[in-house]
């Protein structure tokens, strides 16, 4: 990492421990499969296998406090752990359970919810998906319409959630939905629902690349016990806002992007037909990427979260998503027409670097990066608000 010489001795010792662990545990069969991945979302069996290796050290929940079963890593140590894994090609862990559900349960859950839900995530028994977006509520999350009607000690849920990543793997879903008919944000609640409850139906949505990550989830008179409310009834907006802040601030993409860039260069060097414009562009992308790595560390992980005042998570979200698209566009500069029909198996990773056709699927899939997690237009709006606050 870029500021390694500035690390405190304890952090440097931790980094050495992480590197020794990766030397021992992260074999070619793991990183080669990860390198060939077509999107940011990890495929499940490999992700679970990698979590099994992290679990003895609690490094899959590295930033969770010890009292909740995590490793209790400092912000800088958690950064080092995630950066180094990305740099070496370790599977990217889905944030849904670990980064989203865990922290909101710690912040808003009852003691009982904490004691049941958190260990189930740590042990790998629960896999969560996110029920936020709806056909009529995307960037404008506050206008969700899925309704949970209170009947005695249960809610009866009707409506639909969409763009639900991994709903076909998950056994639980957390939903932002409406518990009163008013169109206000204080009519929203945060409800935890079992995917195998009667009336829950998952239908796949194919991406333009042909991949299956998204789903639409339908709720037809689904009964949910009131104990499954997280936070207060009507308090769902606060829980969701907290979760979105975690979503935007908890990733480390610097190492992963740097690795991807180097794989692309390796591929390009093995070919004879690379235009000069590619190298000119690569030189610029290298520096932009370095600037992003530094931004991610300085703004996102160097200062404790409480001291972050401006729009750091929004700056970082725009940074990594626009950088990954720059990388994909760079790859397209050397795309032969065969990428349009070759499978990854056919053109393989024989020359080192990434199977070339996966760059094309990656390009298609990563167009989503500037849309999900709050579109980059929404992020710009939030940054503008912080600039205006600074004027006052």
């Amino acid at each position: 990492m870029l500021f390694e010489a500035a690390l405190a001795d304890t952090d440097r010792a931790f980094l050495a421990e992480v590197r020794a662990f990766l030397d021992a545990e992260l074999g070619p069969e793991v990183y080669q499969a990860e390198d060939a991945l077509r999107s940011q979302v990890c495929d499940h069996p490999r992700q679970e296998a990698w979590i099994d290796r992290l679990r003895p050290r609690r490094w899959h929940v590295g930033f969770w406090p010890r009292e909740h079963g995590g490793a209790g890593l400092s912000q800088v140590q958690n950064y080092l752990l995630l950066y180094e894994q990305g740099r070496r090609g370790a599977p990217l862990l889905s944030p849904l359970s670990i980064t989203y559900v865990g922290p909101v349960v710690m912040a808003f859950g009852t003691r009982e919810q904490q004691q049941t839900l958190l260990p189930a995530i740590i042990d790998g028994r629960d896999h969560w998906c996110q029920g936020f977006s709806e056909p009529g509520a995307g960037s404008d999350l506050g206008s969700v319409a899925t309704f949970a009607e209170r009947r005695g000690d249960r809610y009866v849920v009707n409506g639909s959630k969409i763009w639900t990543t991994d709903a076909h793997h998950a056994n639980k879903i957390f939903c932002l939905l409406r518990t009163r008919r008013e169109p206000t944000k204080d009519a929203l609640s945060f409800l935890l629902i079992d995917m195998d409850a009667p009336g829950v139906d998952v239908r796949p949505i194919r991406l333009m690349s042909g991949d299956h990550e998204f789903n639409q989830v339908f709720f037809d008179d689904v009964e949910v016990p009131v104990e499954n409310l997280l936070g207060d009834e009507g308090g769902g907006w606060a829980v969701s806002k907290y979760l979105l802040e975690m979503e935007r601030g908890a990733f480390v993409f610097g190492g992963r992007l740097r690795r991807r860039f180097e794989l692309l260069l390796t591929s390009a060097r093995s070919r004879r037909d690379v235009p000069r414009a590619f190298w000119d562009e690569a030189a610029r992308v290298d520096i932009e990427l370095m600037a992003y790595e530094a931004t991610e560390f300085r703004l996102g992980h160097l200062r404790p979260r409480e001291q972050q005042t401006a729009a750091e998570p929004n700056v970082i979200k725009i940074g990594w998503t626009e950088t990954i698209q720059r990388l994909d566009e760079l790859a397209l500069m050397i795309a032969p027409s065969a990428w349009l029909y070759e499978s990854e198996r056919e053109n393989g990773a024989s020359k080192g670097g990434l199977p070339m056709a996966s760059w094309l699927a990656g390009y298609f899939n990563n167009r989503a990066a500037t849309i999900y997690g709050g579109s980059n237009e929404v992020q710009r709006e939030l940054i503008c608000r912080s600039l205006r606050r600074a004027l006052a």
Partner: protein
Amino acid sequence: MSLETSPECAALVESALRVVRDHYDYPSLRGVLASEAGWSADRWREFAALGWLAAPLAEEAGGLGLPPSVASALMTALGAAAMSEPLPGQLAFGAGLVGAAPATPARDMLLERWLAGAALVALVSADSESPIGVRTDGPGLRLDGHAGAVPDGGIADVFVVEAADPAGDRACFLVAADAPGVTRHVHRAADGRSFADVVFDGVRPGDDARLALDGAAMARAHTLHALLLAAETLGIMRALVGLTARYLDQREQFGRKLIEFQVLQHRLVDMQLETVRSESMLAVAEHACDVQGFSAAAPLVSAAYYQSARSGRRVAEEAVQLHGAIGMTDELVVGHYLKRIVANGLIAGHAERHLAQAACARGVVPPSE
């Protein structure tokens, strides 16, 4: 972590912000720029008294020996002034070059005056198409040649001349600007800084005029120069984002404040994102200079120099656009900022050349390319 600001650095930055606040409102700066000298010698002595010249100078040369990141932070804090007083060149070639040369009586005497703010230096580099030549002539040496576009050349008291002998070997000499055989044609650059075309015609350097500086020492000083110019550009970018945000918040058209228009909000945010990008790249370069030294850090400084030139121009161009016609006038500081940013991307070598050097040194571009 060393990424935190040291007390010495914080004190220097504080003094810089105070000087900018007290003396560098744009009408005052325009007054200085319009004066015959084009810069303020009084102010310069004040800078010397505040310890700005001593900051990056090695302790054995009488300075404070503070790391490069401190000089860089000082320049960033001074960015909003966009002054014509020649700090980047003086810190790089006064402290970084003359200050790094082994002591000689002539060098020590010059440094003492320089440190007091009483003498300025300018580097006449051999990295030009026709470097100044040095050859033996009778009992001594003589320098001949013509150097174009020497930064700080019009206001320098002493030139540091990097000359090449007939075999191509280089040597450095201190030559007083008023020495017999030296003539200079002084130019004021678009951003108010002083340049000169200098002619050396049979100039005889004094017996102890020679400085024992090698190419590596020269390269280190150039790296510091590029770092400081990038730092100043960053300071200007921050000022431009603030100015533009305030202007959009105050100017009304079509019955509402300009900042209410979403397209303008997003363009303002893009200016901020470019600024953050330059800030981060500069932080990487500063850190590398501090811990690895200028030689190893040179590719990262080139990267920061390129990034600040590119982002800086985008930010300044957008600032002009978002201000509208008033942004085109000489009366508003925005135009002066644009000129300074363009200048800063050229003075230490073109930013595109730095990009190519960084790409090559970092192994991004294959050697055959």
